[in-house]
Protein backbone atom coordinates (compact mmCIF):
# COMPACT_ATOMS: atom_id res chain seq x y z
CA UNK A 1 0.00 0.00 0.00
CA UNK A 2 1.06 3.54 -0.73
CA UNK A 3 0.51 4.57 2.87
CA UNK A 4 3.32 2.22 3.84
CA UNK A 5 5.87 4.13 1.73
CA UNK A 6 8.94 4.48 3.96
CA UNK A 7 10.41 7.89 4.66
CA UNK A 8 13.04 8.63 2.03
CA UNK A 9 15.27 10.87 4.11
CA UNK A 10 17.13 13.14 1.73
CA UNK A 11 16.47 10.93 -1.24
CA UNK A 12 13.66 10.12 -3.55
CA UNK A 13 11.20 7.31 -2.82
CA UNK A 14 9.33 5.86 -5.77
CA UNK A 15 6.54 3.33 -5.75
CA UNK A 16 3.99 2.26 -8.30
CA UNK A 17 0.37 2.72 -7.34
CA UNK A 18 -0.70 -0.65 -8.65
CA UNK A 19 -4.02 -0.87 -6.85
CA UNK A 20 -5.70 1.95 -8.77
CA UNK A 21 -8.74 1.90 -10.98
CA UNK A 22 -8.36 4.73 -13.49
CA UNK A 23 -10.96 6.21 -15.81
CA UNK A 24 -11.30 9.25 -18.05
CA UNK A 25 -14.47 11.20 -17.34
CA UNK A 26 -15.68 13.63 -20.01
CA UNK A 27 -18.80 15.71 -19.47
CA UNK A 28 -21.32 15.46 -22.30
CA UNK A 29 -21.97 18.68 -24.24
CA UNK A 30 -23.30 21.39 -21.90
CA UNK A 31 -23.54 18.81 -19.08
CA UNK A 32 -20.68 19.91 -16.83
CA UNK A 33 -23.07 21.30 -14.20
CA UNK A 34 -25.25 18.18 -14.38
CA UNK A 35 -22.15 16.01 -13.99
CA UNK A 36 -21.02 18.02 -10.95
CA UNK A 37 -24.46 17.54 -9.41
CA UNK A 38 -24.38 13.78 -10.08
CA UNK A 39 -20.88 13.45 -8.60
CA UNK A 40 -22.05 15.38 -5.52
CA UNK A 41 -25.05 13.04 -5.14
CA UNK A 42 -23.22 9.77 -5.71
CA UNK A 43 -19.80 10.46 -4.21
CA UNK A 44 -20.30 13.49 -1.95
CA UNK A 45 -17.56 15.26 -3.88
CA UNK A 46 -17.65 18.90 -5.02
CA UNK A 47 -16.33 18.45 -8.56
CA UNK A 48 -14.22 21.40 -9.71
CA UNK A 49 -13.85 22.14 -13.43
CA UNK A 50 -10.20 23.12 -13.24
CA UNK A 51 -6.67 21.68 -12.83
CA UNK A 52 -7.37 20.61 -9.25
CA UNK A 53 -7.91 17.34 -7.40
CA UNK A 54 -11.51 16.93 -6.18
CA UNK A 55 -12.31 14.45 -3.42
CA UNK A 56 -10.39 13.21 -0.41
CA UNK A 57 -11.52 9.58 -0.07
CA UNK A 58 -10.95 6.44 -2.11
CA UNK A 59 -12.40 8.04 -5.28
CA UNK A 60 -10.84 11.24 -6.61
CA UNK A 61 -11.12 13.35 -9.74
CA UNK A 62 -8.09 15.13 -11.21
CA UNK A 63 -9.00 17.93 -13.64
CA UNK A 64 -7.19 17.38 -16.95
CA UNK A 65 -9.02 19.79 -19.27
CA UNK A 66 -12.27 21.76 -19.56
CA UNK A 67 -15.04 19.29 -18.71
CA UNK A 68 -12.64 16.36 -18.39
CA UNK A 69 -11.09 14.50 -15.50
CA UNK A 70 -8.95 11.49 -14.76
CA UNK A 71 -10.62 9.68 -11.89
CA UNK A 72 -8.87 7.28 -9.55
CA UNK A 73 -10.17 4.66 -7.19
CA UNK A 74 -7.95 2.98 -4.61
CA UNK A 75 -8.34 -0.77 -4.38
CA UNK A 76 -10.72 -0.84 -7.36
CA UNK A 77 -12.12 -4.10 -8.67
CA UNK A 78 -11.72 -4.83 -12.41
CA UNK A 79 -15.26 -3.60 -13.12
CA UNK A 80 -14.94 -0.26 -11.38
CA UNK A 81 -14.90 1.79 -14.61
CA UNK A 82 -18.08 0.06 -15.75
CA UNK A 83 -19.82 0.93 -12.50
CA UNK A 84 -18.54 4.50 -12.90
CA UNK A 85 -20.15 4.63 -16.36
CA UNK A 86 -23.43 3.48 -14.83
CA UNK A 87 -23.18 6.06 -12.02
CA UNK A 88 -22.57 8.88 -14.51
CA UNK A 89 -24.89 7.61 -17.25
CA UNK A 90 -26.29 10.41 -19.40
CA UNK A 91 -24.03 13.20 -18.10
CA UNK A 92 -20.53 11.94 -18.89
CA UNK A 93 -18.59 9.51 -21.05
CA UNK A 94 -16.38 7.13 -19.07
CA UNK A 95 -13.35 5.31 -20.46
CA UNK A 96 -11.43 2.66 -18.54
CA UNK A 97 -7.75 3.63 -18.33
CA UNK A 98 -6.79 1.27 -15.51
CA UNK A 99 -4.26 -0.51 -17.72
CA UNK A 100 -3.64 2.57 -19.89
CA UNK A 101 -1.81 4.66 -17.31
CA UNK A 102 0.94 3.80 -14.89
CA UNK A 103 0.93 5.93 -11.75
CA UNK A 104 4.10 6.46 -9.77
CA UNK A 105 4.18 8.08 -6.35
CA UNK A 106 7.28 10.17 -5.74
CA UNK A 107 8.05 11.16 -2.18
CA UNK A 108 10.89 12.59 -0.17
CA UNK A 109 12.69 15.91 -0.01
CA UNK A 110 14.05 15.43 -3.54
CA UNK A 111 10.69 14.68 -5.18
CA UNK A 112 9.90 18.31 -5.99
CA UNK A 113 13.39 19.36 -7.16
CA UNK A 114 13.58 16.21 -9.30
CA UNK A 115 10.25 16.83 -11.02
CA UNK A 116 11.11 20.52 -11.34
CA UNK A 117 14.21 19.56 -13.31
CA UNK A 118 11.97 17.91 -15.91
CA UNK A 119 8.75 19.92 -16.00
CA UNK A 120 8.44 23.39 -17.56
CA UNK A 121 6.03 24.59 -14.89
CA UNK A 122 6.56 26.17 -11.49
CA UNK A 123 6.22 23.47 -8.82
CA UNK A 124 6.85 25.80 -5.88
CA UNK A 125 4.13 25.27 -3.28
CA UNK A 126 2.85 28.83 -3.87
CA UNK A 127 2.22 28.09 -7.55
CA UNK A 128 1.51 24.36 -7.31
CA UNK A 129 -0.02 23.65 -3.89
CA UNK A 130 -1.29 20.35 -2.50
CA UNK A 131 -4.21 19.27 -4.70
CA UNK A 132 -2.88 20.99 -7.83
CA UNK A 133 -2.95 19.03 -11.10
CA UNK A 134 -0.96 19.65 -14.28
CA UNK A 135 -1.07 17.87 -17.62
CA UNK A 136 2.34 18.51 -19.15
CA UNK A 137 5.48 16.82 -20.52
CA UNK A 138 8.61 15.52 -18.87
CA UNK A 139 11.41 14.41 -21.19
CA UNK A 140 8.92 14.50 -24.11
CA UNK A 141 6.68 12.04 -22.26
CA UNK A 142 3.16 13.22 -21.53
CA UNK A 143 2.70 13.29 -17.75
CA UNK A 144 -0.10 14.17 -15.39
CA UNK A 145 1.28 15.58 -12.14
CA UNK A 146 -0.73 15.71 -8.95
CA UNK A 147 0.65 17.16 -5.75
CA UNK A 148 -0.81 14.84 -3.11
CA UNK A 149 1.30 16.14 -0.23
CA UNK A 150 3.86 18.82 0.59
CA UNK A 151 6.61 16.47 -0.63
CA UNK A 152 4.52 13.84 -2.42
CA UNK A 153 3.52 13.71 -6.07
CA UNK A 154 1.61 11.22 -8.19
CA UNK A 155 2.77 11.05 -11.81
CA UNK A 156 0.57 9.33 -14.36
CA UNK A 157 2.14 8.40 -17.71
CA UNK A 158 0.82 6.21 -20.48
CA UNK A 159 1.84 2.71 -19.44
CA UNK A 160 3.83 2.06 -22.62
CA UNK A 161 5.94 5.13 -21.76
CA UNK A 162 6.51 4.10 -18.14
CA UNK A 163 9.89 2.57 -18.98
CA UNK A 164 11.02 5.76 -20.72
CA UNK A 165 9.85 7.85 -17.80
CA UNK A 166 11.62 5.54 -15.38
CA UNK A 167 14.79 5.91 -17.45
CA UNK A 168 14.56 9.70 -17.17
CA UNK A 169 13.89 9.45 -13.44
CA UNK A 170 16.77 7.10 -12.69
CA UNK A 171 19.23 8.94 -14.94
CA UNK A 172 18.29 12.38 -13.61
CA UNK A 173 18.46 11.17 -10.02
CA UNK A 174 21.93 9.76 -10.64
CA UNK A 175 23.07 12.96 -12.35
CA UNK A 176 21.86 14.97 -9.36
CA UNK A 177 23.47 12.56 -6.89
CA UNK A 178 20.07 11.75 -5.40
CA UNK A 179 19.69 8.36 -3.75
CA UNK A 180 16.65 6.68 -5.26
CA UNK A 181 14.67 4.22 -3.18
CA UNK A 182 12.34 2.00 -5.13
CA UNK A 183 9.54 0.28 -3.27
CA UNK A 184 7.35 -2.52 -4.39
CA UNK A 185 3.82 -2.54 -3.02
CA UNK A 186 4.26 -6.26 -2.50
CA UNK A 187 6.81 -5.45 0.19
Amino acid at each position, binding site marked *: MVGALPAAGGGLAVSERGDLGIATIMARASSTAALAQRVAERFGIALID*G*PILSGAGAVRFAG*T*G*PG*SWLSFCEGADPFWACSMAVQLDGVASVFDQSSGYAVLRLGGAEAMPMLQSGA*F*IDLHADAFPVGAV*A*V*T*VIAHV*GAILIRVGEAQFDVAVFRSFAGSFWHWLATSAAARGVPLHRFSEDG
Partner: protein
Amino acid sequence: MRIPCPYCGERDAHEFVYRGDAAPQRPDGAEANEAAFADYVYPRANVAGAMHEHWYHAQGCRTWIVVERDTRSHAIAGATLAREAKR
Protein backbone atom coordinates in the same frame (compact mmCIF):
# COMPACT_ATOMS: atom_id res chain seq x y z
CA MET B 1 7.57 31.84 -25.71
CA ARG B 2 5.04 31.19 -22.94
CA ILE B 3 1.35 30.87 -23.81
CA PRO B 4 -1.30 31.58 -21.15
CA CYS B 5 -3.68 28.64 -21.48
CA PRO B 6 -7.03 29.60 -19.90
CA TYR B 7 -7.24 26.16 -18.27
CA CYS B 8 -3.63 25.17 -17.51
CA GLY B 9 -1.98 28.53 -16.90
CA GLU B 10 1.25 29.72 -18.52
CA ARG B 11 2.96 26.98 -20.53
CA ASP B 12 5.95 26.67 -22.83
CA ALA B 13 5.08 27.05 -26.54
CA HIS B 14 6.46 23.59 -27.30
CA GLU B 15 3.40 22.04 -25.60
CA PHE B 16 1.18 23.59 -28.30
CA VAL B 17 0.41 22.99 -31.96
CA TYR B 18 -0.02 26.14 -34.06
CA ARG B 19 -2.87 26.29 -36.54
CA GLY B 20 -2.99 29.92 -37.67
CA ASP B 21 -5.43 32.76 -38.17
CA ALA B 22 -8.61 32.30 -36.12
CA ALA B 23 -10.55 34.84 -38.18
CA PRO B 24 -11.66 32.83 -41.27
CA GLN B 25 -15.15 31.40 -40.87
CA ARG B 26 -16.03 28.15 -42.59
CA PRO B 27 -18.67 28.83 -45.26
CA ASP B 28 -21.95 26.95 -45.16
CA GLY B 29 -21.22 23.80 -47.17
CA ALA B 30 -24.68 23.63 -48.69
CA GLU B 31 -24.79 27.27 -49.72
CA ALA B 32 -21.21 28.32 -50.56
CA ASN B 33 -19.56 28.12 -53.99
CA GLU B 34 -15.99 27.04 -54.76
CA ALA B 35 -14.67 30.59 -54.65
CA ALA B 36 -15.94 31.05 -51.10
CA PHE B 37 -14.23 27.83 -49.99
CA ALA B 38 -10.98 28.73 -51.77
CA ASP B 39 -11.10 32.06 -49.96
CA TYR B 40 -11.62 30.26 -46.64
CA VAL B 41 -8.87 27.70 -47.15
CA TYR B 42 -6.04 29.60 -48.89
CA PRO B 43 -5.60 33.40 -48.77
CA ARG B 44 -4.23 34.74 -45.47
CA ALA B 45 -3.71 38.33 -44.42
CA ASN B 46 -0.07 38.06 -43.17
CA VAL B 47 -0.85 40.46 -40.35
CA ALA B 48 1.90 42.68 -38.95
CA GLY B 49 0.52 43.40 -35.49
CA ALA B 50 -2.10 41.97 -33.19
CA MET B 51 -3.98 38.95 -34.47
CA HIS B 52 -6.13 36.12 -33.13
CA GLU B 53 -4.70 32.65 -33.69
CA HIS B 54 -5.73 29.09 -33.02
CA TRP B 55 -3.37 27.03 -30.88
CA TYR B 56 -4.00 23.46 -29.74
CA HIS B 57 -2.72 22.54 -26.28
CA ALA B 58 -1.70 19.04 -27.35
CA GLN B 59 0.61 18.32 -24.39
CA GLY B 60 -1.74 19.86 -21.85
CA CYS B 61 -5.52 20.11 -21.60
CA ARG B 62 -5.98 18.93 -25.22
CA THR B 63 -8.15 21.93 -26.00
CA TRP B 64 -8.18 24.50 -28.82
CA ILE B 65 -7.58 28.04 -27.63
CA VAL B 66 -7.63 31.46 -29.31
CA VAL B 67 -4.54 33.51 -28.54
CA GLU B 68 -4.18 37.23 -29.24
CA ARG B 69 -0.55 37.70 -30.26
CA ASP B 70 1.36 40.61 -31.76
CA THR B 71 3.28 39.11 -34.70
CA ARG B 72 5.95 41.83 -34.49
CA SER B 73 6.87 41.46 -30.81
CA HIS B 74 5.35 38.05 -29.88
CA ALA B 75 3.64 39.88 -27.01
CA ILE B 76 0.52 37.95 -26.01
CA ALA B 77 -2.47 40.01 -24.87
CA GLY B 78 -4.65 37.11 -23.77
CA ALA B 79 -6.20 33.76 -24.57
CA THR B 80 -9.65 32.17 -24.41
CA LEU B 81 -10.98 28.69 -24.96
CA ALA B 82 -11.96 28.45 -28.64
CA ARG B 83 -15.36 27.08 -27.61
CA GLU B 84 -15.97 30.28 -25.63
CA ALA B 85 -14.41 32.76 -28.07
CA LYS B 86 -16.72 35.28 -29.72
CA ARG B 87 -17.39 34.30 -33.30
